[in-house]
């Protein structure tokens, strides 16, 4: 029979990658001076698991590689080897290599075998000696030597407590009889008097005669487990026994079978120049795979909610079946519907939570990243993380990974200064990058705070003028300047370091975050530091929206972008000829966007006083949307327009209202773009101070 266990490889890869994460974070936690044994043990166990599993699944290169790591770790946990920084670093590289090896195997991709060999060499050298090559031999394989049939005399005397280990002489005799013809003679001389007999103890001894063509080692093997718990004597016996009927001895159970098909783990080597160790793109463990681990509690909660839903449903259908529905009946129906609403809402929240995972999964790559990068940049940087338990949608988390990396790298590279520069400024030599996550409103906020040099406003303006984004001498606020760094092709780094700063980064970061329905902003103070703030919706499928009326159409404005709604006071409205209208709100001038115009629909009224202004914000810019009226606020399910149609400017999606009609969900940033295209003024927000005051 051959059982295919390759179906469990997926699980093996998953848990191995998790194990590697644990190894890495614990290695980083390891205090070289005073290594905590429990930590070393944890690292050891992770390596041991991977070694065991890879051997079982036939991934021998992985098994061999991990074996050396495991041996090192074993020595460390036993105290036979000191924990040194060098050792930790080599182990860290080994974790990387293992990751690459497993990824290459899982994805059938190419592997940089040179790197593997080089790192293995380092491990071996550290271990001090030639590596013990794969010695994972299955149990002693003895090719049955074609010996002729012999009579073996076996003297088997179990110790008193042999039975206590669950070993049964009968089992051993059965095995022996598989090796040849067996005859057993029991010796009861060891039996005590009945009243002294302990049923759990073994008093019997046997003399066994085995006629077999197997050799002594095979016979001993049968007793391998009880080696310490018995007295065993095996010798060849001369003389006859039973009539020789030398049939083929029953074949020994093949205890030694070649390991399962050796997966080709030496996939084609990548021809790289050994010099440039280009950091291989590291895929986060939760990378685009289509499965999710859910805690059983969440599932139970869900089951409960569905149960309640079923009860409510049957209650409602009972009421509905009444022949006549009187006032009392209507009351009951209303109550039932109220309950239905509660059940549905709870169910929805419950389901959403299933897709949520703590952001620690996205954060966990950073200790290593900061560790490696800061030594590479010769800077002293510590990483602080908080709010790692804050939960967000799994898909959102997968997609926020790369933008986060870019922003953190940016802080390390351009933000935090070198130790001597910091000293001159009177700042502590060690710079800090702080990753923080928390919930706010219906969103998750992620902050990347550094205490570095801050953004250089002059340099940015200079660059912007150079690229035609600003006119020389234009009055711009600090926020506007800072926001400029998100423009395409913008990088004020003097030298393009290979870490970041090739200028392709920030605009892509913003685009990616925007495509998740989120926003990213930066605030900064020179020499104090910068803070990047990312806001993301907790879920991609549902939105809290404000319904607005424009003529016969209903639109949805995302609540997250609304600052306030107000009635128009005409004295606050200023028209700038050729450029449009602005509204003075406290100390700001905000462009007025007439939605009916942008969307080409017939409004109820064209006078601003007949309607309302909804002030919205996106990425540092504000506009006031002119609508006829406000309807309620509600949660809406986001439906894609692109499934059957296409992306439309100013619209991020659609939803289906309670009456079955379709309402469009507005994309505030896109609307601003539409409006600016329709109104010739290029930078409407600049209208405020200079022109409007005139």
């Amino acid at each position, binding site marked *: 029979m*051959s059982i295919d266990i390759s179906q*469990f490889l997926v*699980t093996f890869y998953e848990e191995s990658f998790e194990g590697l994460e644990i190894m890495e974070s614990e290695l980083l936690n390891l205090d070289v001076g005073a290594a905590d044994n429990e930590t070393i043990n944890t690292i050891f166990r992770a390596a041991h698991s991977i070694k065991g*599993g890879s051997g079982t699944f036939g991934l021998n290169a992985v098994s061999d590689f991990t074996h050396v790591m495991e*041996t090192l770790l074993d020595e460390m946990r036993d105290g036979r080897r000191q924990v040194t920084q060098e050792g930790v670093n080599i182990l860290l590289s080994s974790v990387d290599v293992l990751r690459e090896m497993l990824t290459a195997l899982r994805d059938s991709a190419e592997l940089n075998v040179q790197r593997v060999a080089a790192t293995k060499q380092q491990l071996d050298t550290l271990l001090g000696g030639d590596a013990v090559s794969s010695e*994972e031999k299955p149990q002693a394989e003895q090719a049955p030597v074609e010996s002729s049939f012999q009579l073996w005399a076996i003297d088997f005397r179990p110790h008193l407590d042999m039975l206590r280990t669950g070993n049964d002489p009968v089992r051993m005799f059965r095995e022996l009889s598989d090796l040849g013809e067996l005859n057993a003679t029991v010796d009861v001389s060891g039996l005590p008097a009945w009243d002294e007999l302990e049923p759990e103890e073994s008093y019997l001894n046997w003399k066994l005669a085995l006629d077999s063509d197997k050799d002594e080692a095979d016979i001993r093997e049968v007793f391998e*487990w009880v080696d310490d718990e018995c007295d065993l004597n095996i010798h060849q016996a001369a003389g006859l026994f039973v009539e020789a009927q030398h049939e083929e001895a029953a074949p020994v159970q093949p205890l030694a079978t070649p390991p399962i098909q050796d997966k080709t783990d030496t996939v084609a080597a990548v021809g790289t120049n050994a010099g440039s160790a280009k950091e291989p793109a590291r895929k986060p463990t939760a990378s685009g795979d289509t499965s999710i681990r859910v805690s059983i509690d969440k599932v139970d909660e869900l089951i409960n909610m569905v149960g309640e839903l079923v009860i409510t449903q049957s209650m409602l259908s009972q009421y509905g079946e009444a022949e006549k529905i009187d006032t009392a009946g209507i009351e009951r129906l209303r109550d039932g519907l109220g309950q239905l609403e509660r059940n549905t809402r709870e169910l929805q929240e419950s389901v959403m939570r299933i897709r949520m995972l703590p952001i620690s999964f996205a954060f966990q790559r950073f200790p290593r990243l900061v560790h490696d990068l800061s030594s590479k940049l010769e800077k002293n940087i510590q990483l602080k993380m908080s709010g790692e338990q804050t939960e967000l949608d799994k898909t959102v988390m997968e997609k926020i990974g790369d933008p986060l990396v870019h922003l953190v790298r940016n802080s390390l590279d351009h933000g935090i200064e070198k130790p001597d520069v910091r000293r001159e400024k009177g700042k502590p030599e060690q710079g800090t990058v702080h990753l923080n996550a928390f919930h706010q409103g219906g969103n998750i906020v992620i902050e990347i705070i550094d205490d570095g040099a801050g953004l250089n406003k002059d340099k940015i303006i200079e660059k912007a003028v150079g690229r035609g984004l600003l006119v020389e001498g234009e009055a711009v606020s600090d926020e506007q300047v800072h926001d400029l760094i998100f423009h395409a092709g913008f990088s004020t780094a003097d030298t393009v370091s290979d870490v970041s700063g090739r200028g392709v980064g920030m605009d892509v970061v913003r685009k990616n975050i925007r495509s998740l329905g989120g926003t990213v902003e930066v605030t900064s103070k020179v020499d104090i530091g910068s803070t990047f703030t990312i806001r993301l919706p907790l879920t991609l499928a549902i939105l809290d929206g404000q319904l607005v009326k424009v003529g016969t159409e209903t639109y949805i404005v995302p609540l997250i972008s609304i600052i306030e709604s107000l009635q128009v006071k005409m004295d606050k409205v200023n028209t700038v000829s050729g450029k449009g209208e602005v509204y003075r709100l406290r100390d700001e001038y905000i462009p007025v966007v007439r939605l009916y115009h942008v969307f080409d629909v017939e409004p109820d009224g064209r006078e601003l006083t007949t309607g309302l202004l909804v002030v919205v914000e996106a990425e540092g810019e504000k506009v006031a949307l002119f609508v006829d009226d406000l309807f309620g606020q509600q949660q809406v399910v986001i439906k894609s327009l692109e499934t059957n149609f296409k992306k439309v400017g100013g619209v991020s999606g659609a939803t289906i209202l309670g009456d079955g009609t379709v309402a469009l969900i507005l994309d505030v940033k896109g609307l601003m773009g539409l409006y600016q295209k329709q109104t010739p003024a290029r930078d409407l927000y600049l209208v405020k101070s200079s022109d409007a005051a005139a």
Partner: protein
Amino acid sequence: MATILAVDDSASMRQMVAFTLKSAGHQVTEACDGQDALKKAKGNKFSLVLSDVNMPIMDGIALIKELRAMGDYKFTPILMLTTESTGEKKQEGKAAGATGWIVKPFNPDQLLATIKKVLG
């Protein structure tokens, strides 16, 4: 056929072992560490216990000791899943009361053969 308790902190190993044993007609219960195994062992009489050695919370050796202290499991065959590199573990395990061991890595056929040996 038999009711087997399989203990290992590695999910892929558990799955592989469970699948193999089930396809031979045995009933299998999985546990992820010693503590979990003990919980499941109480109140259920398993005819065989398979256990990994290196596990968090409670390792295989401790589990064997605990099991042997329980009346129901005094004579139950308990097999350790060990690797060569933890050779002394075999002795430790035996001292704790293990019946025997299976050496990792093993393939499904080896596993079934050993089980058959023990269960008869």
